[in-house]
Structures are given as C-alpha cells and as structure tokens.
C-alpha cells in the first residue's frame, strides 16, 4: 500500500487578484504643453495655462495652454492656409498619411492606453482593449476611403472636401472621439482644428506628436486646448463645419450660434438608453450586457444603457443576478488591469452624479450599492442600482453620465416600446430576447440611432453612430460619417 503522508491542512487565504498595474514609465510627459498650430507646439497668446490632473489621484500631470479667441483664430488661419495643398494632394497620397497615423497609434498603443487611463480615469483594460484599438481602426478604415470617394457616393457628382472643420470632443473617450472626428475629415481632404475636453487633453496632444512623426503637412491638424470659452471661440470662428460631441445643453447653444452662418453642423449629444430584457432572454449574458452597458467607462458613455427595462416574470431572477454580479465588480486604480470600474472623470461630474442619486433616493426609488472599499484620494462613485423607479423620476429622465442604473419593469412588448421611447433622447437601445422576429420588430419601433441585440456597447468604424431627437443629428462612422465632410456641388470654400 502506498504510504500516506501527513500534511497540514492549508488555510485558504482570501482569493485575491494581483494588483497588476501597468507601469507609467512608458509615458514621458512634458511639464507644459502649448497649442498645436501649424505643425508646432506654440505658446498661447492668452498667456494662460491650466493644470490637468489624474482623477484617480488628483495629482497634476502637466500644464496645458488655454487658447483664447486669438489663439483659435491663429489655428483656424493655419488650417485655412494648409487647406489648398492638402485638398490638391493626390487622394492616395493623402491616404498614406492617414494610414501612417493609424500605424503609429498601434505602435504606441500601450503608451496611449496608459496616458488615457492616467488622464481620464478609465480602467486600463478598456483603454487598452477598446479605446486605442478602435481609434486606430477608425484611421485605418477612413484611410481606405480616401482614394475611393467617388465610388463611396455614386451618382452624387465629384466629391470635394468641405474645407476647414472645427471639431469639439468630450472627455469620456478622448482619443477615440478625436479619431472619430479627424479620420473622416482628413480622408475627405479637409483640414481641422480640434478642441479636446478641458479635463482630458493629454492623449490628443500625444496624437499631435504622432502627426508630427507622420510628417503630416503643417496646419492640416491643429489642436487647441481649453474649456468652454475656447470651444465657443471655435464655433464662432470662420470654419466651414462644426462637429461636436458632448452634452445636449451645449449642443443647443452651438446650434443657435451656427444658425444662419452656413456652417455645416453635426451633433452627437446625450442619451438615456433603454436596455430591454424580455423574459426569454439569455439571462446570464443579459446580466453581463447590462453591467457592461452601464458600468463601462464608469457610465460616462452617451449611449450607456442607463435605464433597464425588465419584463416582470424575470425581474426577481435578473435583479438577484445583477446584485450578485455587482459584488464582483472591482472598483479602483484605473491602471490595474483587473479593475472593472475606474475613477469618475472630474470633481464636477462626481458632484453631478451625487446630486442626481440623492434625488433618486428622495423621490422614493430604492438604492442598492455593493460593499467595496474606495480609494481615499481621487473621485469615486460606487456602482449603483435603483429599483422601484418610475418614468417620472429624475433618474429615469435625466442623463446621469455615471455608474448608476435605473431599473423599471414592463409587461408587454408595446409597453416596452412606449417606455423606451418616452425620453427626449434617442441615441441607443438594447434588446435581449431569443426571438429573432421580436428583435427586428423592436429595432423598427425604437427611436434610437443604434439598437443592439443581445449585446451592448459594441462599436465598429464601419457602423454609423448617432442619435434621434435631443441626442443630436448626423452620423459618425461608416460612409454616413464620411458624408458630412464632403460636398458634391463644388460649393466648398
């Protein structure tokens, strides 16, 4: 008989995931960043600088120039000066530059990912696996169209660039939004002035360095940093097109100030998407989809599935699963690759989320938050569920733009459609069911620019993205996203 051996029963240590932080060594930050105008970093005429911080530690990362109207004018002039040569360049040559940018982004993907998480607070697994690869994919995709524009829009006449585009982007996907804006504009032969968000300018400025390395002709892309005033100056500047992604509130202001100016305009604004779970849905995957729909990027997503509509027979089962799953979410250091939920982007945003959550409690909804330790410094908010929410509650109507899910129930398909559409927004929606015909039926009746079926928050450069109603107009991505940067009547300035 084999001899038995004695060994102590090892006590089970708690199962812990290693903190697996990405090293920040790869990112070399300058002390100060000027404005990127005419292919160079220049001092701002305003003479003003502002700090940009890491929302997870509140540490200052660098100082960034604040562009005033004169700085913006200088950038627009540079773009205007660069326009004739850029549009005259053979399309295949133009494509080479855009391809080069795409390849450089891939080459330096890790650096971009770390910087994106540092400056914006999003988990490294998202910046690494979603933001940066998608940004590169957008440049690749549109680069391919540069010399095929006539075939992209057959029977529309000879395509020509619009001219100078003013592009204003938000802080939730800083580099990706820059790519969504720049890639189609450049491929179509436009020159641009890009204004990154005040809280997250750094990856755009790193992208400026990539533009330099790609030897993009000076002035084709200009980047001006600053807050709302800088954006307003850009909207008022003599550009041919404004593309804006941000809040509905600011979108309305932009629409007012561009009215009657002849400037083309596309707006991609807020949302209050419904994620609709029918009783026959694949529940465990629906849970993942709901979690991803609202906690992806801390809920700082315009198309976030912030309203969950559950058919009553599966409400208890789904809620139980959601609560369990919430307990396993890891909130913390954005640079840790095991982190699921990172830092809230700014103190102002945190206060807005807190205020809306308070209103939810006051209006009588039932709040559920998992137990988890939050770091002491930085801006954090626990993943939050609200049950007992009705359509009239603020948390069911207003965009929270944070990790807060409002859960409502429905009984019939018609009721689901009615509730889902009962919002001033219309950016996205999710449908979870095993029944294919119901998916098609819902997709037809939901007034939302994107309807995901049995998944959520999936993006692809070939797929158009944009909203109904107060979620904006115009599309980004795909051919739909190329069209706003082209004119077919020879009427471009």
């Amino acid at each position, binding site marked *: *008989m*084999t*001899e*038995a*051996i*004695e*060994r*102590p*029963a*090892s006590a*089970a*240590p*708690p*199962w*812990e*995931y*290693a*903190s*697996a932080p990405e090293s920040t060594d790869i990112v070399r930050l300058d002390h100060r960043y000027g404005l990127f105008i005419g292919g160079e970093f220049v001092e701002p005429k305003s003479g003003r600088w502002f700090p940009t911080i890491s929302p997870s530690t509140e540490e200052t990362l660098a100082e960034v120039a604040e562009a005033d109207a004169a700085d913006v004018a200088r950038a627009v002039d540079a773009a205007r000066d660069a326009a004739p040569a850029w549009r005259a360049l053979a399309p295949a040559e133009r494509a080479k530059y855009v391809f080069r940018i795409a390849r450089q982004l891939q080459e330096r993907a890790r650096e971009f990912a770390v910087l994106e998480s540092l400056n914006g607070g999003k988990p490294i*697994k998202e910046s690494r696996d979603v933001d940066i690869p998608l940004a590169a994919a957008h440049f690749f995709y549109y680069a391919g169209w540069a010399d095929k524009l006539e075939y992209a829009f057959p029977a529309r006449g000879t395509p020509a660039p619009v001219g100078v585009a003013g592009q204003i982007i938000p802080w939730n996907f800083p580099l990706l939004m820059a790519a969504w804006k720049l890639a189609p504009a450049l491929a179509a032969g436009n020159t641009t002035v890009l204004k990154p968000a005040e809280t997250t300018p750094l990856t755009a400025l790193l992208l400026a360095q990539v533009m330099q390395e790609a030897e993009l002709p000076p002035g084709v892309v200009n980047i001006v940093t600053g807050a709302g005033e800088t954006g307003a100056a850009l909207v008022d500047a003599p550009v041919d097109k404004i593309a804006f992604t941000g809040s509905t509130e600011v979108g309305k202001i932009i629409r007012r100030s561009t009215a009657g100016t002849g400037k083309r305009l596309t707006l991609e604004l807020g949302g209050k998407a419904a994620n609709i779970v029918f009783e*026959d*849905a*694949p*529940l*465990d*995957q*629906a849970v*993942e*989809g709901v979690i991803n729909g609202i906690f992806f990027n801390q809920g700082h997503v315009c198309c976030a599935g912030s309203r969950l509509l559950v058919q009553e027979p599966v409400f208890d089962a789904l809620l*139980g699963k959601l609560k369990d799953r919430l307990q*396993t979410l890891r909130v913390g250091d954005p640079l840790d*690759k*095991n982190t699921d939920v990172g830092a809230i982007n700014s103190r102002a945003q945190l206060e807005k989320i807190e205020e809306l959550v308070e209103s939810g409690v006051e209006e009588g909804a039932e709040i559920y938050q998992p137990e988890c330790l939050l770091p002491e410094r930085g801006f954090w908010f626990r993943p939050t569920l609200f049950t007992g929410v009705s359509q009239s509650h603020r948390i069911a109507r207003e965009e929270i733009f944070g990790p807060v899910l409002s859960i409502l129930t429905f009984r019939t398909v018609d009721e689901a459609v009615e509730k889902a559409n009962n919002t001033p927004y219309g950016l996205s929606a999710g449908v979870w069911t*095993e029944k294919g015909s119901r998916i098609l039926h819902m997709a037809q009746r939901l007034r939302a620019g994107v309807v995901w079926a*049995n*998944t959520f928050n999936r993006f692809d450069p070939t797929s158009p993205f944009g909203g109904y109603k107060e979620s904006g107009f115009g599309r980004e991505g795909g051919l739909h996203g190329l069209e706003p940067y082209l004119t077919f009547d020879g009427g471009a300035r």
Partner: protein
Amino acid sequence: MVGVSQAAELSPRQPLEPVATASEAARIVARATAVDAVGLEGRAAALATRSIKRDSKVWALELAIRCMDLTTLEGSDTTGKIVAMCAKAVRPDPLRPEVPGVAAVCLYPQLVPVAVEQLAGTGVAVASVAGGFPSGLGPLDARLREIADVAAAGADEIDIVLNRSLFLGGRYAEAFEELVAAREAAGSAHLKVILEAGELGSYDRVRQASMLAMAAGADFIKTSTGKISVNATLPNALCMMEAARDFHRQTDRRVGVKVAGGVRRSKQSIQYLVLVHETLGPDWMTPDLFRIGASSLLNDVLMQLEKEDTGHYSGPDYFTVD
C-alpha cells in the same frame, strides 16, 4: 500513519434524491434559460485575463492539485500503471512533502480494485468511469450493472455519461430515467454525470443537459469524456457553472462542476478557478464541488509551484512521470 491529505476533507454525503420526476424532464429542458454564445464566450475570455496575487497563486496551484482527478483512461492501462499513478496521486512531489495529494484517481472499472488497495487510508478517492463510457449506448441493464459493480468494488466516485442519443433525440424523460437509475445503482458513491459538451452542439444544449443531470440527482456535472476532439473549454465550463449557480438558487442544492480533457497547463487550471470564483463564489473552491480531470496537468502545476518557491524553472525530468 493515517493519511490526512487534503482530499480527506471530502465530506461524505447521502446520495442525492432527484428533485423532479421523469414526467417533468421535458419541462426542465424547455424552461432552461437561453444562453447567448457571443456573450458567454466574451465573458469567459475576459475572465481568462485576470491575474491573481502571488500568495493566492500558490494557494490556487495547491487547490488545483487538491481538486484534481488524476486520470488514465487508456485501453493499455495495467496494474503497474495504476500502482504508479496511485503513488503519484498521494505524494505528487517526493522532494516536497508539503505538496498536497490529489482528490482522486480516475480509471476504468477493471482497475478499481488495484486503486482501492493502493489508496486505502490515504484520503485519495477512487473514481471510476462506468455506464458504458464513453458513448453510454450499451444495453441499459449492462450499464447499470457496471455502475453497481464498481460501487461494490469500492469506488468512491463514479463518472457516468449522459445518454446523448436520447437527449439530442428529444427523449428527455428516458434520458432522465437513466440518470436516476444510475444514481440508484451508484449507491453512496458520488455520481458525476458527463455531458460531453463537445457533442451537444450549442450552449443552450449544455445548459439544458446540466439542468437535467442536476435534477436527476448528480453530485457533479462534468464537461467531457476526453475521448472526442472538443473537450473542456472555458465557455462550456462557464455555461455549466452558471447552470449550477441557478440550480443552487432554485433548490438550495450545491452541485459540483468537473472540467475534463485538454487541461494541461497550470495557467488553464487557474483560469478555471477564476471562473469558479467569479461565478459560483468561494464556497465552490473545494474538491467537494470542483474538480479538474487531467493526466499531464499535475507535473506542470508542480513545476509552477517549485518556480514560485525557488524563482526558477527546473525541467520535466525533475518530476516523476507517474
């Protein structure tokens, strides 16, 4: 000296009663929640990227050994092979006695008496496949007799196969009745039901089969026989774990999950443990409720354990082949 290997923690339990009758089998299958393949595979892939702390890693590697069913299921197995494997099962690394023994050895019925003799008093259990492994398509009375025989011969655990012919043919009540009969034939031995997920064709089917086997009184549901090209995969295992989680919610009964076939590397075993932890929780991280059926995995785990200790890898020749 009395063996107190980790496997000795295995709690004896009463044979489980079915929680349904054969007439309800079709309803159990029909009511099984749908599974979305894209979402399931995405979740499994995301969990596979988790990295665990070094302390946890050593614990996880030891757990992988404690949860291991050291397996040989070859026509060429002999008494000599089984004697050697039993020695390895009790003391996987002769130079490092602190390394725990495995949960069980898993072998063909004819060799059960050899293993029973070798492992008596060691705490390592004897598991035997039975019931017409791997197809499960022999005459029912012969299959049931085989199960009863290995139980009588002293097997602590019996790995049987789901009758995929009946299941895929929609004859759920008959498939269910066979499982219940096998449950009875197994007596007090732990019953593991192999679903052979690679033959079921969809994750919906894997989930339905899981629910059917659990309702019939299985102590464990197991992914694969190891005899076909598709063995345990992370999505299959996740699908079954989600079924076990829901079954526990519904019936308060904890059913174990065994992954088998194709698990050769430590890294894979840790990925499966991550799935267990994230899906079923810490309660399931015990040989009572989680098993890995493998033959070549053990030495890779030993090599990783040694590396955690010494900081470097030795080589395959520094670990005994059996």
